[in-house]
């Protein structure tokens, strides 16, 4: 049943990357429990705009939990109190009348704040660019069914591939480690036959980039798995660690190719 709530928000406001940020308090009145969390922020923002105040900047796009754009720390938990739910899919029925809700951006050195709740997650793109792919230029590869993939592997690969790259795992980790994100991609591609040729260079290159971006190391807290809206498991981290050790053993500096001819 639809109910209406009166809430108090404590929102992190920060004009830009250079500015100091601080919490500001806003009332959110007569909020329908049918609304999504972001729709609640819309309502607050509409009011701010009408008053000529700067609305709260927050990232969002699909609003159906798949693009990975949204994300803020709600009541101390990335994406808010509901398990396996992104901020955009969180509904106000998860809150009580009179609640005080703190809303903050992801906090991690590798994710600098751009404005208010918006952070720069470009580091994730750079990690993928370093090796999170299978080299298969557009052309005419062999028939798709020429390479059967055991269903179990395909399913496990899909489990890992479900990652939406939102960054909640980093925000939740006391070390701001990106291991869950990186390992999901390493796992997905490493589980598939197509991914074998680059399996060990991939993990090495991605991990090197991850370290260079300033993410912390994994000390097995498990907070990442707990907050992941897509249920990516730490099993992926185990798989990645295994591949990483093997990659280190296999490592040979590259020899220049080519020659006379």
């Amino acid at each position: 049943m639809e109910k209406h709530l009166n809430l108090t928000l404590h929102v992190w406001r920060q004009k830009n990357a250079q500015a100091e940020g601080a919490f500001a308090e806003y009332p959110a009145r007569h909020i329908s429990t049918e609304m999504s969390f972001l729709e609640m922020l819309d309502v607050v923002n509409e009011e701010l705009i009408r008053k000529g105040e700067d609305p709260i900047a927050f990232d969002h796009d699909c609003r159906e939990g798949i693009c990975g754009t949204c994300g803020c720390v709600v009541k101390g938990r990335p994406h808010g109190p509901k398990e396996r739910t992104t901020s955009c899919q969180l509904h106000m029925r998860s809150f009580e009348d009179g609640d005080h809700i703190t809303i903050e951006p992801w906090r991690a050195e590798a994710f600098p704040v751009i404005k208010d709740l918006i952070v720069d997650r470009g580091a994730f793109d750079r990690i993928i660019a370093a090796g999170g792919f299978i080299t298969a230029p557009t052309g005419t590869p062999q028939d798709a069914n020429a390479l059967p993939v055991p269903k179990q592997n395909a399913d496990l690969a899909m489990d890992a591939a479900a990652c939406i790259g939102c960054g909640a795992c980093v925000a939740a980790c006391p070390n701001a480690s990106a291991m869950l994100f990186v390992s999901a991609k390493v796992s997905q591609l490493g589980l598939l036959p197509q991914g074998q040729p680059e399996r060990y260079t991939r993990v090495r290159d991605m991990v090197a980039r991850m370290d260079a971006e300033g993410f912390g190391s994994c000390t097995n807290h498990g907070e990442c798995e707990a907050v992941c809206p897509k249920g990516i498991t730490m099993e992926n981290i185990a798989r990645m660690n295994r591949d990483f050790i093997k990659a280190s053993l296999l490592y040979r500096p590259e020899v220049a190719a080519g020659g006379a001819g």
Partner: protein
Amino acid sequence: MELNSRIPEGPIEKKWDKHRFDMKLVNPSNRRKYKVIVVGSGLAGAAAAASLGELGYEVSCFCYQDSPRRAHSIAAQGGINAAKNYRNDGDSIFRLFYDTVKGGDFRAREANVYRLAQVSVDIIDQCVAQGVPFAREYGGLLDNRSFGGAQVSRTFYARGQTGQQLLLGAYQALQRQVGLGQVKMFPRHEMQELIVVDGVARGIVTRDMVTGRIETHVADAVCLATGGYGNTMYLATYAKGCNGTAIWRAYKKGAAFGNPCYTQIHPTCIPVTGDHQSKLTLMSESLRNDGRIWVPKKKEDCGKPAAQIPEEDRDYYLERKYPSFGNLAPRDISSRAAKQVCDEGRGVGGTGLGVYLDFSDAIRRLGAKKIEEKYGNLFEMYERITDENPYEVPMRIFPATHYTMGGLWVDYNLMSTIPGLFVLGEANFSDHGANRLGASALMQGLADGYFVAPYTVANYLASTKPGSRLPIDHPAAKEAEAVAAQKVGRLLGVGGKETPTHFHRELGKVMWEFCGMGRNEAGLKKALGLIPQIREEFWRNVRIPGSGEELNQSLELAGRVADFLEIGELMCLDALERRESCGGHFREEWQTPDGEALRDDENFAHVAAWEYQGEGSTPVRHIEPLKFEYVHLATRSYK
């Protein structure tokens, strides 16, 4: 304006191969001297940017999100078609071609559709090679399902996240090129203007959404792959940022707009709950494979819980009206049927704008476990949004705006009426005619990006001199920058009282009411009176706090709404002028006695392409006649 579709000669199954051979190539050592701009990083844009980068061209790619991986293609759930005939159920390239032409209600160009069906086969191979984890069977081979009313199983899927997986495949290929320095990626950059010199596209102007900087980018060719403009309707299944800005600004520079009124209203979306609603969520059409759609026969029953309505008092209206397709009737037909029963007062849910999608039979037949395996994530999503458990009570669904078949007019090479400006994916007026079949948009986006544009753009580049790019401070570039800056200044300067969203919502109401599932002359004329009023009010009374030199989401939205307020008008005008019903365009004056769409092939078997005539003047409607040599014009029947 000349509309030359440049369809190659020869039998349909040979056209593309012959054309590929006839097109000019660019010498590998010359490729790095050419630069291509790709606006958009969805399936069409990411695939094109990655493929052009691989070929050795210098590419700049732009998107408005913080990462190319977030383009709206990511939200596609159901699947992607390909004429692989892996099921041995009678599929073929010709059948996919046939189904698409017929499904589009004979308003698409045959030659383009045939090519689409042809390359569909390569798309799956390409995606598998990239590591896209498509669903597989126990034997390890790819699984298929039947989708959106097709009578063969040709849809490939990755759980309920096909778009996500295809996009991530393309994104990874793109990032590989970024890593190699072939592609430069500009996230959080919104295209504002197209730079045209002597009638040729030479670059774009963008706004850096973090710093507010207005910048010029020049290139030898520009590809727009900016997606659909369905957010003109305000409530839609699109991501919030989807916009028509890039194609609209190109239209104003001379690119013809094809069939703006062709919009697809998807039958299975979660109904609206209230005024706060910011978007609508699609429930994958695959649900119609096992769910049965019904409403109560009697109005009085509408308020009762579904379980209390006995079988004999339920109207399974799709099964009743279309016995051979039943719940799988095409989207336009299913949507209209839902509207009809709701108009009769038989809709369910608080607003009366909803119909049931009921899984109880399927659960009885197959068991809840099997249903969970097939649709678990969708059921979960439904419950998260509505707080109702679809294993226990039927889902409630209602149609919502979902796709735009219209878009910039392109020839066979995907080039617009502005030489050097290519348009890919949903942004072009495309291969879907007046109605798109399920699982065909992903196919088209990837076909355009991976397999068509790399050839046709190269052919165009080969006709230009390498190194003849516009200097960045060319007067035309400066002028385009000034126009973009002025627009920002004008928006900020209004200083009114209402939010950009307010005007967007107002526009949406008018569009949905008069240019939605049912359209008629009086309504469209009314809308054509109302939209300019909303637009005027917008420019008088919109309020945008902050400045243009910072991240300013109200400003971004206002810019898009300003364009929607113009696009909406062209959609209504096109709908008014198309005096027939076809596909998603249902003109109430043209229907059979039992309410089916009535086409007028004699007068309307053509594409309408609109040419901009300057502010305040009515655009000119050009036509491209359509010939049907392989799929003969026939009334579409799904009875």
